[in-house]
């Protein structure tokens, strides 16, 4: 929250004044209240979870992360620009593949990649939108200097936390909201609904939309149920849908009802056992045929995983230049592809400075954070890298910005990142704010909830 010279950054000035007026123990009280509120809200969501009916909650911090209007302008334009380029890229590689022919991205990187789905080749999707919902992970490393860590283009989750966090903050600190002009986030489901309606199959003016969930054993089930309820659409499982006569139907008490748009929270591999994983019981047999015939829209489309592949990530700036003719607004983290012998040699020499990630890894697993690693961990990673260099990439350790965070009753600095959600239907927009994740361990750069991360409300101040 402090600038380079140690002064309080503009966005935080009003908040800091307020904070000075609040006795520290009151903040701790609010923290406990938040926990209770969350459990209660959590329980209303947690129709699943452990047998005691209470789910494990992701720790929530009561100190908001605040962005001033200029910062948000940069971030929102930047993430929207990336998503526009990614949609153009997906349309291209599943059709003409101009970018490969032009040699801007190595062909093998795309074509010889399991995330590139031949099932999507030649498939025309409404408005040429493939990634309807993206969650782009961004970090701030200096004034107005942002880096993108990942463009999550498959089935990004966490948006319900963005809304819950805001709901909780408004209950706990109503006075703060009257002092600050904070951009609202709770219309997200409305925007999502509008987005999904905009990509209905051609000629359908009043589409039936559903949210497809793997079921109540899935860890994100409450989010699926939440979004379905907020949008006023059915939450379905694979078994509720069937294919007949070139159409997807849902089984209702009134008989079969046609479905036009499926906001699916199931990975490609599981959506149609006749086309992908034959043992999947989560999907709908025949779905791919209807999608390819343009009679149902899947959001996100099949095959978007190629765009957030860790190796393809390095080329997003090239996509922006190639398709949009623009300069990237947000920086890419320089990435060493270890399949490249020169890069590999450099990385092995500089393991203590770099972050090494497994290409197929997710959730902060399969990752070596050089500056915080032991010699033992580094030597174990060296062995793994030498065994299959193509499975790894490496990036310099970024100096992530920090945000004050309440730990054991004390305000301390912790590293944060930000996941704004970018929706693409008729247009591409980012809902102001997003999910701020915070590394709760001192000095840690890993913000994933599975690895001791928490969340904060994210405020975008209106100018």
């Amino acid at each position, binding site marked *: 929250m402090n600038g380079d010279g140690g002064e309080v950054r503009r966005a935080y000035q009003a908040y800091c004044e307020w904070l000075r007026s609040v006795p520290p123990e009151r903040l701790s009280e609010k923290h406990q209240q938040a926990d209770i509120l969350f459990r209660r809200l959590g329980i209303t969501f947690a129709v699943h979870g452990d047998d005691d009916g209470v789910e494990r909650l992701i720790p929530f911090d009561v100190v908001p992360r605040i962005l001033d209007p200029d910062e948000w302008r940069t971030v929102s334009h930047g993430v929207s620009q990336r998503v526009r380029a990614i949609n153009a890229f997906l349309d291209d590689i599943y059709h003409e*593949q101009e970018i*490969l022919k032009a040699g801007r991205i190595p*062909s*093998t990187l795309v*074509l*010889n*990649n*399991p995330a*590139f*789905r*031949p*099932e*999507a*080749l*030649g*498939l025309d999707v409404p408005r040429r939108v493939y990634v309807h919902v993206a969650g782009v992970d961004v970090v701030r490393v200096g004034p107005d200097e942002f880096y993108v860590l990942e463009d999550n283009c498959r089935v990004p989750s966490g948006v319900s936390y963005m809304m819950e966090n805001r709901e909780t903050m408004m209950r706990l600190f109503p006075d703060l909201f009257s002092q600050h002009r904070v951009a609202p986030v709770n219309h997200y489901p409305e925007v999502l609904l509008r987005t999904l309606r905009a990509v209905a199959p051609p000629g359908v003016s009043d589409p039936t939309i559903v949210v497809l969930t793997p079921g109540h054993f899935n860890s994100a089930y409450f989010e699926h149920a939440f979004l379905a309820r907020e949008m006023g659409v059915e939450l379905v499982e694979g078994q509720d849908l*069937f*294919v*007949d*006569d*070139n159409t997807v139907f849902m089984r209702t008490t009134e008989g079969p009802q046609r479905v036009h748009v499926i906001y699916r929270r199931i990975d490609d591999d599981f959506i149609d*056992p*006749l*086309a992908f994983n*034959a043992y999947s019981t989560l999907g709908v*047999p*025949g779905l*791919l*045929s209807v999608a*390819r*015939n343009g009679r149902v829209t899947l959001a996100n489309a099949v095959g978007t995983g190629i765009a957030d592949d860790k190796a393809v990530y390095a080329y997003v700036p090239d996509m922006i230049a190639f398709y949009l003719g623009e300069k990237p607004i947000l920086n890419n983290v320089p990435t060493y592809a270890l399949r490249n012998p020169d890069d590999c040699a450099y990385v092995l020499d500089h393991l203590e400075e770099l972050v090494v990630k497994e290409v197929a890894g997710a959730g902060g697993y399969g990752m070596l954070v050089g500056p915080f690693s032991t010699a033992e961990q580094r030597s174990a990673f060296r062995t793994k890298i030498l065994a299959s260099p193509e499975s790894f990439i490496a990036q310099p350790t970024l100096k992530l910005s920090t945000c004050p965070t309440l730990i054991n009753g004390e305000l301390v600095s912790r590293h944060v990142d930000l996941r704004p959600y970018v929706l693409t239907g008729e247009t591409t927009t980012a809902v102001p704010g997003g999910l701020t994740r915070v590394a709760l361990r001192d000095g840690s750069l890993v913000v994933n909830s599975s690895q001791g991360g928490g969340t904060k409300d994210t405020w975008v101040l209106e100018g």
Partner: protein
Amino acid sequence: MKLTIAHETHYRFEEPARHSIQYLRLTPRPDHAQLVRSWTVSTPGKLRSWTDGFGNLAHVSVQDGLHEEVAVLVRGEVETMDTTGVLPPHDGLPPLMFLRETRYTRLDDGIREFVAPIAERASDEGQVATLHNLMWAIRDRVAYQSGSTHVHGTAGEALTHGYGVCQDHAHLFIAGCRVLGLPARYVSGYLFSEGEEAGEVGAGVASHAWAEAYVEDLGWVSFDASNGVCATDAYVRLAVAMDYEGACPVRGIRRGGGLEEMTVRVQVLNE
């Protein structure tokens, strides 16, 4: 050749099934080696056509309500040309895609060892000759044995066992191509054969599978390791994919029905 094809597949279920759905890849691809004069696919259920990602002409067949069998009937006439087994390089499918490993074509040490001597001579002999060497090596090493393997068998397993069916030969050929660094793909189709006296492996069996390898500047070259030949005008191409799973003629799923029994009758006649 003018080939007349009749292909019937009957599935009989142990008990009535409530709902069954199938993807059928049973229509010849339009290409330079074959011209489809007439073609019909019929099933008792509702049938809709679609095109899969590999450009295969597919159908989806749905049968609702209790039923104890599903019959898939295919009839048609195809005019085939002998292109010495070569098809043009540009068919809308990027060749590099076919360097990918699948469950069926995964490399193991056995395959690498098997291909190593062929790979060694590759730069002297050139690509086309090398591919022939690979095809013959597979034919000599993995005996054709009808009904010897199940549909889930992999290339590595076929090599270890030393026997297999056309599907195994094709998978092993594709895996071998990857050792050589050449893209290769799986083809399912029909094979016309004069009969036992022709001495061809698989004579009389008209449903067939083989492989195609991509040779720069030449195109897709077909290799039928079961018979040790490149495709001629006796071959009809139905579908291409990375492996059996993507190209198989019928892939289905059903609710209820218990165990099933499948009978297939195929007849390919030359006018």
